[in-house]
């Protein structure tokens, strides 16, 4: 086929060296999974081995990724490097190789996943140490990394899909890690089922793509799209992009499929940091950037992506304002920040989307790990006094700044980063997204609305983060007099990851420092080969960043919004004492709407779940299965043979031998007659 030839032409052979060893980044965590999985079944007490193997495979994988990155940096590769490991599905002219693709985008994702993943694994050693399922936990966590790396390194949509489904499985296993509590197991199922709706869209997109392009390799699809510029804006490309985005909305928790992510907080907190903040949930953003040419060829789909992202960013941020569970605030914050990334990639600012993905991985992982350290301390304190109070409710915290100083300082850095205060990491990435969305508004005015949503969400982000910090770390302590004595900072295995991520949250913006402050937009130039197909479309060419006074004005507004938000958040929270959960007055008005998350879960329950259950129970089970199949077909055919055919047949057997002989004789004569012709 010509297209597969094109695909071969658009790739470079593997140069060997560290890039040739890329399969090790997947094989090492896989080995970790096997070892830890075996230990969890056979030697669940061998915690020392688990503590070593679990993080060590990740750090080794990170080292390989780093070496491969340095090698790629020295190569100036224009085409992706594809390593075909083996032929996976050769069916006629449909052929899928299990192949790894290493290019600038994969390199960035690989570093984020293994880098942030390594430190989260290290943190887990301290956090999960006393848990009975310690080995099982690390087995799952290693397995997650395996699939996440398949996702970012796969060279075609089906291989990416293996990783895509695999991380879903690992996510399900880890959300329901403490499955003895039914609520946790239900949360895992919810995540899995909601993601399945998105996966349906992704599959349809793949079918359409295969039908149209005849290949599912990334390089082949890019070649097909570049060879058919007339398809830009066509219904086919828009359909492919929108179905693909449905998959992204599921995986990356966007409206309307975001409801699983807050529930996913049922899992251990490092899991929330790794899977539900830093890596897996950003897979949707990665997929859009990976398919940049398809989205760039469909401005309609791109506008939908940006619109959904903007709406999600604002919507989730408002819910975050009124949550009391520290992890729930961060969960809605993650949904909101993912919305930003989709505003970026929907605008056509793919670099900005990836930039925010990277910085968000740093500061959100830090926030979750910090929350984990807080919960760990709270839990230990309550455990020591045999209290059953909620260790995650911020109304039970307060004044922890003195007991957990390291956690306080590191989380403060992350808060400044997420609020968009310069020079912290989040400022640059968020500002780039907002500025480019504003710039896109010049030709598509609806993007001004998205910009407004983003700005408002930025204000709310600063407010809810300040509220979280104030309720947790400032004011007077509400944990209890006896419990206070047991509150203290975590062991080094937990504080070191906090400090490392804290440093990254401060300097992470350096990867794409804008010219405005004397930077060189390193990430822009680094990702250029990957994004060239999109940049050559009309949609890509039409995007110009703001310049001159507009740029300064946008930056000033963004900074001002962040500062105002923080001031409002801290002042409003510290203005009056926070009531404990028992003494809290009932929420009224809009606060009640926010506390109940707009009743979206209840709405879905009424509109989707219950009708679905009704159809399953009444129509499919009672009517079809029990009525039609069991009743009419199975029992009906038995009744027919017994009561109708059986009765009639038994009448023939009347016991009169003469009658039998006559029947026999007539039959014999008839046969003779037939034979005689």
């Amino acid at each position: 086929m010509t297209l597969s030839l094109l695909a071969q032409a658009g790739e470079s052979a593997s140069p060997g060296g560290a890039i040739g060893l890329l399969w090790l980044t997947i094989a090492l965590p896989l080995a970790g999974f096997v070892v830890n999985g075996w230990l969890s079944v056979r030697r669940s007490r061998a915690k020392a081995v688990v503590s070593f193997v679990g993080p060590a495979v990740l750090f080794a994988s990170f080292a390989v990724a780093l070496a491969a990155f340095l090698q790629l940096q020295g190569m100036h590769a224009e085409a992706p490097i594809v390593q075909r490991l083996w032929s996976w599905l050769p069916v006629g002219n449909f052929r899928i190789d299990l192949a790894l693709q290493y290019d600038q985008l994969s390199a960035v994702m690989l570093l984020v996943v293994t880098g942030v993943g390594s430190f989260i694994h290290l943190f887990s050693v301290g956090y999960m140490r006393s848990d009975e399922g310690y080995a099982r936990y690390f087995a799952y966590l290693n397995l997650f990394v395996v699939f996440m790396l398949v996702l970012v390194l796969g060279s075609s949509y089906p291989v990416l899909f293996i990783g895509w489904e695999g991380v879903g499985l690992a996510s399900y296993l880890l959300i329901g890690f403490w499955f003895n509590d039914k609520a946790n197991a239900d949360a895992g199922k919810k995540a899995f089922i909601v993601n399945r709706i998105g996966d349906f869209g992704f599959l349809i997109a793949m079918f359409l793509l295969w039908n149209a392009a005849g290949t599912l390799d990334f390089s082949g699809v890019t070649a097909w799209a570049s060879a058919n510029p007339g398809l830009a804006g066509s219904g086919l490309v828009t359909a492919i992009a929108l179905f693909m985005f449905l998959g992204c909305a599921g995986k990356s928790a966007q409206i309307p499929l975001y409801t699983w992510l807050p529930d996913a907080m049922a899992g251990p907190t490092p899991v929330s940091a790794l899977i539900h903040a830093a890596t897996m949930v950003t897979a949707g953003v990665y997929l859009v950037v990976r398919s940049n040419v398809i989205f760039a060829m469909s401005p309609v789909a791109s506008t939908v992506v940006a619109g959904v992202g903007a709406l999600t960013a604002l919507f989730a941020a408002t819910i975050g304002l009124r949550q009391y569970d520290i992890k729930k605030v961060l969960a809605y914050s993650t949904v909101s920040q993912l919305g930003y990334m989709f505003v970026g990639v929907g605008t056509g600012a793919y670099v900005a989307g990836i930039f925010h993905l990277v910085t968000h991985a740093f500061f959100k992982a830090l926030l979750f790990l910090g929350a984990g350290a807080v919960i760990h301390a709270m839990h230990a304190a309550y455990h020591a006094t045999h209290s059953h109070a909620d260790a995650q409710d911020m109304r039970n915290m307060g004044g922890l700044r003195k007991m957990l100083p390291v956690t306080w300082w590191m989380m403060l850095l992350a808060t400044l980063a997420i609020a968009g205060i310069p020079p912290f990491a989040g400022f640059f990435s968020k500002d780039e997204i907002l500025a480019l969305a504003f710039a896109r508004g010049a030709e598509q005015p609806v993007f001004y609305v998205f910009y407004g949503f983003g700005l408002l969400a930025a204000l709310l982000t600063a407010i809810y983060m300040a509220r979280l910090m104030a309720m947790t770390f400032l004011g007077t302590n509400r944990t209890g007099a006896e419990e206070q004595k047991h509150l203290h900072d975590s062991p080094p295995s937990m504080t070191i990851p906090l400090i490392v991520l804290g440093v990254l949250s401060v300097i992470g913006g350096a990867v794409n420092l804008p010219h405005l402050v004397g930077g060189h937009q390193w990430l822009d130039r680094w990702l250029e080969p990957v994004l060239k197909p999109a940049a050559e479309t009309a949609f890509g060419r039409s995007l110009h960043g703001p310049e001159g006074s507009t740029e300064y004005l946008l930056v000033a507004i963004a900074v001002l919004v962040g500062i105002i938000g923080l001031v409002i958040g801290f002042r409003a929270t510290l203005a009056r004492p926070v009531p404990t959960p028992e003494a809290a007055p009932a929420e009224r008005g809009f606060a009640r709407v926010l506390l109940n998350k707009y009743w979206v879960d209840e709405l879905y329950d009424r509109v989707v779940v219950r009708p679905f259950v009704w159809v399953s129970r009444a129509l499919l089970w009672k009517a079809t299965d029990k009525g039609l199949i069991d009743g009419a077909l199975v029992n009906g055919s038995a009744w027919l043979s017994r009561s109708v055919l059986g009765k009639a047949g038994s009448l023939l057997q009347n016991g009169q031998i003469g009658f039998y002989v006559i029947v026999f004789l007539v039959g014999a004569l008839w046969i003779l007659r037939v034979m005689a012709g």
Partner: protein
Amino acid sequence: MPQASFIGPSLALSAILFSIGVAGVLLRRNAIIVFMCVEIMLNAVNLAFIALAQLHGVGGQVMVFFVMTVAAAEAAVGLAIILAIFRHRQSVDLQNTNLLKG
């Protein structure tokens, strides 16, 4: 060489014997009589075989030996069954032997 004109009367006799046998099987109730009627039918067939062997060669005569052998075996088994039924029921009336009636 026997006369070919014997064939017609022989077949007629065979048909008459066969019909008598059928009528006996249909109408009589005594198992022994019914059994004897079956034998008449077999021998009617034998007669037809022999008559037709005049036209078609020796095959029919060979078949007669087979029929006689089978008839002998059948007589042995059939009489044994009738004997067993009589011991069980003190009767060989076929009207009473209707356990398989539906």
